């Protein structure tokens, strides 16, 4: 079980969730943030602090957001553009810093009208 950051985060990247996460499992992509599903301990600390309500437990994703679960997985377990190997479970975003890439699906999303 894991929490999932949905595409509501695209172009927003508020980062409050990163400050709340006690296991540092939220990673910064180019356009959105992603939760490492194996590192997430399902504590739920990130969910209420998201200003755009982008975060859900994978068990209760809204119907129009279910694809985001696979997108979060793919970010870690498929090689990202410009990389030969998948990120896998790096053990904390403080170690990796910003990843500066997105999944192909997220990279191709239209600009978020809610972003300023």
């Amino acid at each position: 079980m894991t929490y999932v950051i949905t595409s509501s985060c695209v172009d927003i990247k508020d980062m409050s969730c990163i400050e709340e996460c006690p296991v540092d499992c939220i990673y910064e992509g180019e356009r959105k943030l992603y939760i490492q599903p194996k590192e997430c301990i399902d504590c739920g600390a990130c969910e209420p602090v998201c200003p755009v309500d982008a975060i859900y437990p994978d068990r209760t994703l809204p119907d129009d957001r279910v694809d985001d679960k696979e997108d979060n997985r793919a970010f870690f377990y498929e090689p990202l553009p410009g990389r030969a190997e998948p990120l896998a479970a790096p053990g904390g975003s403080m170690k990796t810093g910003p990843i500066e890439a997105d999944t192909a699906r997220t990279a191709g999303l239209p600009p978020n009208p809610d972003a300023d």
Partner: protein
Amino acid sequence: MNVDVLIVGAGPSGLYAAYYAGFRGLTTAIIDALPEAGGQVTALYPEKQIYDVAGFPAIKGKDLIEQLVAQAAPFNPHYLLGQQAIGYQALDDGVLVTTASGIAVRAGAVVVTGGIGTFTPRPLPGGDSWVGRGLEYIVPTYLPYAGKDVVVVGGGDSAVDWALGLEGVADSVTLVHRRDEFRAHAHSVKLLQDSSIRVVTPVQPVSLDGSAVLESLTVRHVKSREESVIGCQAVVAALGFTADISPLEAWGLAVQERHIVVDTTMATNLPRVFAAGDITEYDGKVRLISVGFGEAATAVCNAATVIDPTATVFPGHSTEGAPQ
């Protein structure tokens, strides 16, 4: 210090282990890196209702912790809070655990109820060399800030509460945050708006500067990228906490994906070291408080037979006698 059972981690499983050890007539000490008992429950969700603790249709996180502390209290567990257990040494008839501050605890057995690991403050990027020389991550007391210009960094409850607490003690208080909105409780944010605290947003800290002592914090505006310098003699960074099990891994414990491998007696690979609660790993493991309680009892009762080979694993029924 000399005890029968040393418990590492004062979350629900650790507190229940303290009760259980006491019930079995064993003396205990409980170490935790956080300044308060309760572990994740206290740190992450003290106000949330928990619905799956046996016997309680609903109980608030902090109330559960209060009850667990009360349940163990008759047996006088020795609390070592704000202490990190780092050193481990196996002795012929026990173990020796030392804390980061140099306290040595000799115990017949250890029960590790460390949950997700040791909570440590999230560091302020670039702040390393200023820690203890003007940069602090927690504010246990406001007095050392008297007469100083203080900058608090962060947007959560700790940042806002500390800024409010420092107002009136410090010469001036500035609160900086990378966004305009604060996610602290609405009531605290209202108090902040009505206070004399200077709020600077949306900015990111860039560097701490000074010659011998801290003199300023430079921040950069998130959008315009313009930098500005805030004169100060103290910076408090309240950027949250992360948990890390590597201090326990360093004992030589067998760890699998951030969890300690145990057998059915809750024994780890190290002699006289048991584990219970969220930190354990075995086939079919379920990470819930209810499961942690059961494991705590199993760990303590099996530890009892290691401490005293004539003891039995089964403790007897609690109905046979209330604590004195």
